[in-house]
């Protein structure tokens, strides 16, 4: 079993190799350094297309977009990088900086920074994997406890199963809490100048609010072909906005 697991890991690791090699990335970064942001962005976008799970491709593209004054797109790209690697200080710093350009902040007012860091310590995928791992650990330790019923190792296995089950409950609670995060079921207004919020999914409805470019919004309903129903938690309002003006996280 151990050998099979190791074999799986060895086979799996090459698959996570980066879409860009170091020299290609250095070339793109040189373009960025020389102020050729459009050219650099094109390369970073190719890296994203090749491996959408690479947070650094999103981060670098966000930097190029920020330099090009496309703040909405920059926020979106930083947010994508943040959801993939929430522990990176660079990603956090740039996301926070870009959010502040649009009147937002990564750490909401009144929330201790340490608590906010802990809340986002793991990405959603990592949280799900942790929950799955704890579930497996609890089940296997429980099975060992039943198989060695009455023996001392069985008692120890039972305690391990209970501990894993308790941690599993905690991780599920954490996962549930993260469902309310601003980055879950969310999108970013990427249209320059912001987006209009209509009272219904169509041009015949009244415009009664607007969301500025770079604003993080909750996506409440995505069933319509052309419109998202979006919510602005801070203002307590919701409305419909064109899907082409909002990029979903």
């Amino acid at each position: 079993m151990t050998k099979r697991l190791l074999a799986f890991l060895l086979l799996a690791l090459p698959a996570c190799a980066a879409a860009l090699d170091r020299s290609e990335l250095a070339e793109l970064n040189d373009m960025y350094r020389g102020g050729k942001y459009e050219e650099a962005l094109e390369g970073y976008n190719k890296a994203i297309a090749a491996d959408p799970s690479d947070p650094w491709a999103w981060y670098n593209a966000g930097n190029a977009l920020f330099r090009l004054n496309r703040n909405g797109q920059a926020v979106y790209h930083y947010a994508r990088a943040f959801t993939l690697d929430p522990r990176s200080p660079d990603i956090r710093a740039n996301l926070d900086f870009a959010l502040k350009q649009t009147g937002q902040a990564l750490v909401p007012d009144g929330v201790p920074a340490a608590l906010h860091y802990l809340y986002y310590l793991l990405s959603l995928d990592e949280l799900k994997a942790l929950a799955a791992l704890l579930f497996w650990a609890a089940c296997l330790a429980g099975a060992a406890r039943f198989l060695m019923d009455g023996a001392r190792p069985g008692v120890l296995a039972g305690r391990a199963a209970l501990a894993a089950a308790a941690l599993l409950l905690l991780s599920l609670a954490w996962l549930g809490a993260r469902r309310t995060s601003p980055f879950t079921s969310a999108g970013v207004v990427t249209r320059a100048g912001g987006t209009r919020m209509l009272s219904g999914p169509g041009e015949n409805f009244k415009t009664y609010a607007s969301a500025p470019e770079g604003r993080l919004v909750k996506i409440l309903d995505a069933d319509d072909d052309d419109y998202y129903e979006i919510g602005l938690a801070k203002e307590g309002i919701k409305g419909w906005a064109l899907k082409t003006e909002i990029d979903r996280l």
Partner: protein
Amino acid sequence: MAAAAAALLWAGPAAAYLTVTAETDRTSVEINENLYLTVTVAGDSASVPEPKLPNMQNFNVYSSGRSQSISIINGKITTSVSFTYILTPRFLGAQTIPSITVSNGKEKAAAPEIRITVSKAAQGAAQQAKPARRAAGGARAAKGDQLFLKAETDRKAAYVGEQINFSIRFYTAVPLSSNPQYIPPSFKNLIAEDLPPVRNGETTINGVRYSYSEIKTALFALTPGPAQIKPASVIAQVSVDDQLDPFDPNFFQKMMAMSGAQGQSRQLSTDQLDIEIKPLPGGAPASFAGAVGSYTVSAASDRSDAKAGEAVNFSVTVNGSGNLKAVTAPKLPDLADFKVFDTMSSLDVRKDNDVISGRKTFTYILVPRSEGRKTIPPVKFSFFDPKTGGYRELQTEPVTMNVEKGQQEGRSVNFAGVAEASQVTPSGSDIRYVSEETGGGNLPFLAAKAARLPLWVHALPAALLALTFWLARLNRFRADNPLLFRFRRARSEADRDVDEAEALIKAGKPNEAVSLLYDSFMDYLSDKCGAKVSALTMRKAVELMRARFPRAGDRAADEVQELWSALELRHFSPEAAGSEGAGDLAKKYSLLIELLEKELK
């Protein structure tokens, strides 16, 4: 050099230090002269803080330039920066330059105050000059024209970063009773540098002689588009009784030396000046980083022989006229033979002939990777020359050095380690630089894979848990109810024994078959009755069976006794048992089991 004062304030551990000294070129000065104040700040970090000049009401202060020297020996940095100021006295008598302090956040140093004696200007020259000027002056100015202010720039349009000289002149043809107060203009889209000292002179305008005082400022535009110099003002007290002669060569200083005199207050303001800032033309070389002016560039290393792994100071010096503060470090070419560590810069600025010029040196720490003859290729530096309206790209000569084998391959050199005492002054914020990293790492990759496993995979451990739970319950039940399980399995074990016995009979071993059937029958009855029957007599065993199964019929009891007797007989008298008898017994046993399974419930 008349006076010097120095103070060293050593704070904290001996490893770090910060010092400031202040000195003037003389300790006594005439009211119509200037004196130079040089403040030198030294420290053991890459940069040292600028001195904070105290409020000096008794002097007009103008920044004249700065000169910086840095030495790096074995990675230890010593920096010394001299700031030069021109001081114009405003009052006669003993004056004081207060203590000048510097602080880098951790340490503070102070230079003691300096006493200056300000005396009257030499009278002889003034008295001789006065009648001549009176004679030459001729007419007296009309009252409205007796005082006026004139501001102008040397150009109405300039490129971004090109020096623009701004001049403001205060003219007076009447005596003043006190020093005028100068309110400098504010600037839009321009940064300013003083061009001291204040120039005084006389001139004739429309037949009227005026004494004037001129202050010049160098301006540099930040971005293309309009730039503005907002109005500047002078507030002057016009003397009622002609206490001061405007044609006195010491007029300006005298008027500044007077205070509290009675007079009429006049405020003069200039108009706003607009300057058009032109963008730099296209076609800039790749090495262009925004430098505007006229420069030369050179490169040198601090040694021609080095060892692998040891730090070498490689300096690129940009020399010339322009806003040197805005000149950024040239990008080094690819240096495969060297590791490149921190860069730091030193700046010397001069303001001769109203031109901002000087030298900026960028020092790179290079560490040779291996021995051999190594060459640092030319470093390119380009700038925009506003005089020619075009770009120029310069490059340094290549620098070659012999590198011997060293003992400290790739030793890390970092200015940060020795710059602990430097004060961090945030001047803005920006996003962090692009990352050299690529790929998401193994943990997020595995996490993503695990998170996307199909749900049925996670059912496996749950099924295993349920199975083991059921098994554990079963085992416990069996442990708690051993007789019940023996009762239930009695039939299957008896059937198995019958099969085995028939095989033995076929193999020609009837005696072993009968023994097996006898033992099997005893076990069957024991399992059914919950007691070891073989230890009982046949009668007691049948009684026990009747007691345990009251609904069992007599036929079952009779057949049990009959089979028991037959098996005992054959078992204990094997010679009487033939092959046919063993086979009959096996059939009888089989039939009896079927009967007992119905009866013993």
